[in-house]
């Protein structure tokens, strides 16, 4: 299945002519129609489709916002209010875009933790997985710069705090910061370059997403059992089975998304960002958006500035080493009774870090952040390597089919083979 061997046969004369020159229809057919999908995927596997939807939604709403937005320090705040008040349905487009960023991160965190739980990062999916980490880093950069654009108080001070982190880099730190700023403090040049990059990065994300999907179609999807497709009976063709499930999941996610947009559109933002940026007045609490909070807690847990920055970056880059740090041969946590407990402990620690990131850096909060940060890294550096040796996994089923249907049912009457054509209608 890795050769993208196309079973697509063009019907029309033009189709044949075109396919022999650019076999794109065949590529689409093999990737999204005939592609064999494990038949036991749960709804956790629909978040890939949800993320594609969110990326497209963010780009579309963003393009329309850019038609009215003015990236100038004196006009940016006003232009956002112009969108909110005077542009037809401008309030809708802007609330979709602002809340869309949060929805994007909710979906990506579910996607990432699904990957952690079912061991999707393990061989042969390491490259697919690392491409995903790169997408996440690009998303963070894009979201951060997007939050600066309305040029409210939190935009300005968030930008000041985060860009200042780069000054911790030895020797070249100050130079990097002045290039980010385009001057000696956050100001109009900063806003201009952030706007430019905020428009550029999503298209870089699109590029890496294409690689991510490409890399997915070589080994195929993981599944809740973690064991590969062994026979045609373990799989169903992507279309219509996975397609309809993905479309249904996307629409359910849209209901969730719409709830925030129409009923509590400012809940996930900060009240301070409705105050125009003022370099002379510092807000009482400078807090990043919720999706950055765990990393912000790690940053502040380290008393040294450079150390904090290194820890924060390492907290994400360490994900790239997971395929090699995890020594267990078993992918799915469903068959790893000991690791299952550590997995949920890790989830709790991440949530706790998120909460600590929203608290002021004082007293017990700092100590708790330090304990959680230490555990966060211990999960990767100690738990993952050691458990592979000490844990006795449960017996794996012989096949996906056996696992989900039970041996007695035997999967009789299942027509579709791994490389079979999709069902004819009717």
């Amino acid at each position, binding site marked *: 299945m890795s050769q993208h061997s196309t079973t697509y046969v063009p019907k029309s004369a033009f189709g044949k002519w075109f396919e022999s020159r650019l076999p794109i229809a065949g590529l689409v057919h093999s990737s999204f129609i005939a592609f064999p999908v494990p*038949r*036991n*995927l*749960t*709804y956790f596997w629909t978040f890939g489709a949800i993320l594609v939807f969110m990326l497209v939604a963010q780009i579309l709403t963003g393009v329309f916002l850019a038609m009215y937005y003015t990236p100038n320090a004196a006009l940016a705040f*006003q232009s956002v*209010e112009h969108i*909110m*008040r005077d542009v037809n349905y401008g*309030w*809708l487009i802007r*609330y979709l875009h602002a809340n869309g960023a949060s929805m994007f991160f909710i979906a990506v965190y579910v996607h990432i933790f699904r990957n952690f739980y079912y061991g999707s990062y393990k061989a042969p999916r390491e490259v697919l997985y690392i491409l995903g980490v790169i997408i996440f880093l690009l998303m963070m950069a894009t979201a951060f710069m997007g939050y600066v654009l309305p040029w409210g108080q939190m935009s300005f001070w968030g930008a000041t705090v985060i860009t200042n982190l780069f000054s911790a880099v030895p020797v070249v730190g100050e130079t990097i910061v002045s290039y980010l700023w385009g001057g000696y403090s956050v100001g109009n040049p900063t806003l201009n370059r952030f706007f430019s990059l905020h428009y550029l990065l999503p298209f870089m994300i699109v590029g890496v997403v294409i690689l991510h999907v490409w890399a997915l179609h070589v080994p195929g999807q993981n599944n*809740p*059992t973690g064991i590969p497709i062994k026979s045609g009976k373990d799989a*169903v063709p992507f279309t*219509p*089975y996975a397609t*309809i*499930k993905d*479309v*249904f999941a996307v*629409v*359910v996610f*849209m*209901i969730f998304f*719409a*709830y925030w*947009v*129409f*009923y*509590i*559109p*400012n*809940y996930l933002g900060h*009240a*301070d960002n*409705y*105050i125009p940026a003022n370099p002379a007045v510092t807000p*009482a609490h400078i807090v990043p958006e919720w999706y950055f909070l765990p990393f912000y807690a790690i940053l502040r847990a380290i008393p040294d500035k450079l150390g904090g920055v290194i820890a924060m970056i390492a907290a994400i880059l360490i994900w790239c080493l997971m395929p090699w740090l995890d020594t267990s041969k078993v992918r*799915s946590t*469903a*068959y790893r009774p000991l690791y299952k407990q550590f997995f949920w402990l890790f989830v709790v620690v991440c949530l706790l870090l998120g909460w600590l990131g929203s608290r002021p850096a004082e007293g017990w909060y700092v100590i708790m952040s330090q304990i959680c940060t230490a555990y966060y890294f211990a999960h990767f550096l100690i738990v993952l390597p050691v458990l592979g040796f000490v844990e*006795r*996994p*449960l*017996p*794996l*089923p012989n096949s996906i089919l*056996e*696992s*989900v*249907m*039970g041996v007695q049912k035997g*999967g009789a*009457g*299942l*027509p*579709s083979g791994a490389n079979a054509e999709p*069902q004819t209608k009717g």
Partner: protein
Amino acid sequence: MMKRTLLIAAAILGLSAPAFAAGETPVPPQLSWSFQGPFGTFDRAQLQRGFKVYREVCASCHGLSYIAFRNLAEPGGPEFSEAQVRALAAEYQIQDGPNEAGDMFERPGRPADRFPSPFPNENAAAAANGGKAPPDLSLIAKARTFERGFPWWITDVFRQYSENGADYLVALLNGYVEPPAGTEVPAGGHWNAYYPGHIIAMPKPVSDGQVEYPRNEAGQPQAPETVEQYARDVTAFLVWTAEPHLEARKRLGFQVMLFLIVLAGLLYFTKKKIWARVGGEVEGHATPPMTHNP
């Protein structure tokens, strides 16, 4: 003794509002608003009264620079008539120009003009107000909030509580109480129970009976002419100025929700039918037998 215990209990439960020590800020009480919830709408009469309070009280120091006179006639707001708005705008002098001779000039306002600010610039506003410019009020209802704390920040999502700015503003306007005994209020400052830090530059802005409300047939005011009512009315007006499309948003939201839920239902049954071709949908993995590999 018993009475004292009850008092302490009441204070802990937040029932006795003016029981605050100097350092802590009480939580603003949650009021009931016509615009809360999924079907919320503004009360036109309340917005019109609130505008009157803004105009006669707040406008002497606070701008409303994102609002144009025409907005007052638009659907979903106070909905004054076009003629009323034209007459209102004409009462203001707006600087325009330069004309053909290159001079700036003043002319009566038109519905398309925005509310002129009470001060020519921020420095002038600061100079006239003890060093700090009074904030523009267009967005104030979204720019102010208070800490909700656990677990309320979770329940707020389900209750759709987004009137925190409004509740804070009403509490602030009603918060001009006597400072606790022994507290020194610095010159130019005023004690406010709900303002973070308690010392606010703004003096108590309005007193009972200061703004006259429209009369009904019996010659009675439409609503009580009290500070409490003024605070509610002007806050409702400021929620509208901060979120002028609130009604349209909630209305469209209901339609979108209905559409999506029906669509999701249809897709669910479509999915079931499609998966029936391969013997129905099977998900996940069987519960593994709880025995270990030998």
